[in-house]
């Protein structure tokens, strides 16, 4: 995968402790090294992302203490 959201993911990791403190379970919107906002729903975060940054890219991520990977049993997915 290209490092297309590398800076946004670093911004999320750097701000995670503060975000967890006040907004655990909510959705953060990040562009570059800036946290643009925190929203109760994923759809609200996406809507605001398109309003602020047009077609993107930007990062919307649920604020979680532990992030479990999505699970697949299918062998159709091949990297």
């Amino acid at each position, binding site marked *: *995968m290209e490092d*297309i*959201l590398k800076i946004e*993911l670093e911004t999320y990791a750097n701000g995670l402790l503060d975000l967890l403190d006040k907004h655990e379970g909510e959705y953060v919107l990040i562009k570059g090294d800036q946290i643009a906002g925190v929203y109760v729903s*994923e*759809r609200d975060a*996406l*809507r605001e*992302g*398109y*309003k602020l940054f*047009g*077609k*993107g*890219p*930007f*990062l*919307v*991520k649920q604020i979680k203490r532990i*992030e479990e*990977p*999505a*699970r*697949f*049993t*299918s*062998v*159709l*997915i*091949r*990297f």
Partner: protein
Amino acid sequence: MPSITGRTQNIREIGPVLECLIAPSQIYIDTLKLSKDELPEPVKVRALIDTGASTTVVQKGIAKKLGLNVVSVIRIGTPSHINVECEVYDIAIIFDITRVTFPNIMVIEAPLEGQDIQCLIGRDLLSTSVFIYNGIDNSFTLSI
């Protein structure tokens, strides 16, 4: 509750497969105030309803065809790989025959190979649906 029923000659061999269209999400279209002329042509895919997939997946390259940018990243685990980072896109899924639509869904983009399947409909989408697999009748019904 709108329903889609599919029937195949041998559902055990082929699985619950149906034709879908992948398009930009309704939130994307509404927020960016895109007119019909500005919208890309939806991409037709063959989708497998996969209860072993926690999240819906589309074939790598579809988002680019639709001119969409990545909006998130998550890690996934498969039988052969653990903690692989995948890009996430915001799309709509339209079931081709009935035009029943999931207007806003966040999907993973990943390489799907080997069986002419370009989309796995996962448990995220099934979490708001009723899925009936009728092996005796070689049919399935998805009610949304």
